[in-house]
């Protein structure tokens, strides 16, 4: 058996709300293989972002640990790239410089850096916009810059927190295909968060459903659809079956959050 790229080991997270503690993650464990594309879905507030921030090293878990290649992480690091839901681009830098920023600490030669930046600008379909400032870009274009910025320094793990959440459904579909295309070409391990089940099935090797708060691993579903994928697969039986199973599972959790008064 190959050692997992990411292993999340018994991670628990407590937060304090107006003095009283409440559990957001409860003994969450999961392993992700090298170059695997895993998506986490779950109802709003179940702790998906918290989980991702813990893997990214931005939040220290109350209990448990996260290992990359078997080594426990200690804070954020260059081995894990992050794409946030809010575009979080550097407004004062143009597209090219935004992406270049990630290579600041890279050992590459200046020329090589420029080449790499150009390559990724092309890969996310932004050639011609190198000199444009974020303010001049549409939401989809901004998020493409953010993706290129996270990919360009080739982190071994890519963490994405609802990166397409703010986009309209058309742009969203395009971005999913684009992401897969880029990922096929530059394979990395991806941990992706969304609440869009179609999106999860379309892009992932494996979809993980989290229970309502406190977040536990509720269901794991391996998506056997062949790659490379195009949007036609959304009508395949395999896709439909997976969708039915996942939606049912999430629905159960959503109903729970509505029936039981929050708190506890």
């Amino acid at each position, binding site marked *: 058996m190959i050692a997992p790229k990411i292993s999340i080991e018994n991670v628990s997270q407590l937060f304090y709300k107006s003095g009283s503690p409440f559990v957001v993650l409860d003994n969450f464990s999961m392993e992700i293989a090298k170059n695997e594309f895993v998506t986490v879905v779950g109802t709003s507030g179940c702790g998906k972002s918290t989980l991702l921030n813990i893997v990214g090293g931005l939040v220290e878990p109350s209990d448990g640990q996260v290992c990359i290649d078997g080594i426990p992480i200690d804070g954020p690091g260059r081995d894990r790239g992050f794409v*946030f839901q809010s575009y979080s681009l550097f*407004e004062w830098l143009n597209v090219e410089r935004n992406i270049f920023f990630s290579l600041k600490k890279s050992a590459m030669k200046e020329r090589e850096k420029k080449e790499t930046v150009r390559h990724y600008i092309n890969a996310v379909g932004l050639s011609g916009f190198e000199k444009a400032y974020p303010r001049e870009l549409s939401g989809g274009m901004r998020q493409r810059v953010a993706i290129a910025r996270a990919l360009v320094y080739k982190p071994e793990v890519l963490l994405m927190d609802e990166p397409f959440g703010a986009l309209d459904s058309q742009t969203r579909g395009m971005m999913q295909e684009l992401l897969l295309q880029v990922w096929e070409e530059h394979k990395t391990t991806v941990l992706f968060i969304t609440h869009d089940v179609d999106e999860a099935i379309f892009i992932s090797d494996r979809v993980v459903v989290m229970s309502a708060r406190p977040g536990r691993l509720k269901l794991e579903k391996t998506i056997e659809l062949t790659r490379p994928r195009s949007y036609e697969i959304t009508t395949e039986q395999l896709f439909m079956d997976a969708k039915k199973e996942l939606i049912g599972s999430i629905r159960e959790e959503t109903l729970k959050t509505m029936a039981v008064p929050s708190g506890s």
Partner: protein
Amino acid sequence: MKIMSKNRKEQKLSISRTGIPKRGKVKFFALREDIPRNIYILGGAVFIGLVLVAWQLITAFGLVRPLFLPAPVDVIVEGGRQIREGILYADASASIYRIVMGWGFATLFAVPIGILMGSFKFFEGLFEPFIDIVRYMPVVALIPLTILWAGIGDFQKFLILFIGTFFQQVLMIMDNVKQVPVSLIRVGQTLGLSRIEILKSIVLPSAFPGVWDTFRITMGWTWTYLVVAELVAADKGLGRRIMDAQRYLATDTIIFGILFIGLLGLITDYLFKLSGRFLFKWNRGS
């Protein structure tokens, strides 16, 4: 795409550059809507013109005695006299020097301390209570102390301007720094940047437009403290001239001095705005 071509090819489009829609009326009183630029500027000029005309009329018809309100012409004549005798130049250079030094020192301290306070809760907790206390102290009341500490030379003037400016400025810069989205800082962390690198290459550039605006506003406040700074033991200066004129009831000198300070303030304000627009091209349209 659309936006890009708008920026690049604006001149080639047939849209009139005045900003007035081709058809339909211009709405002057639409809530939070832009109005044509030239009307915006014209309005300001017309209003100042009206004030001047009213002033001229009031004095021309002798509604107020010249002792209380001299005619605009008298004020202009007084200005001419000051220029000819070199008084204005000496006063203005002495005052501008004080403003630049007072504001400059305040800024020199406010920027790093403000950045520390905005970035690290520890420094906010450490300094803010103290600053809040000093901030409410009347600067005029500090004149005797500043004389004791700094004598009666220019340094005492810097000190007054410093006190009047620094304690407001540092809090505003702290706020500017806090406006930097946390997610940008997170990006820096995931890229493996150190705290210093994040402050330097993310927090600073991101907060810069706001800080620049703070510079502009606080410079205005420094100007308003000029008269206070020159209240005691100054032989030259725009504020000094005004205080002296009070003794001789030279209202024309007073009004000229006030207007001149206003003018200089306006010019500095404009220079800051202009350079800001040039420095932060990426921020245009906000």
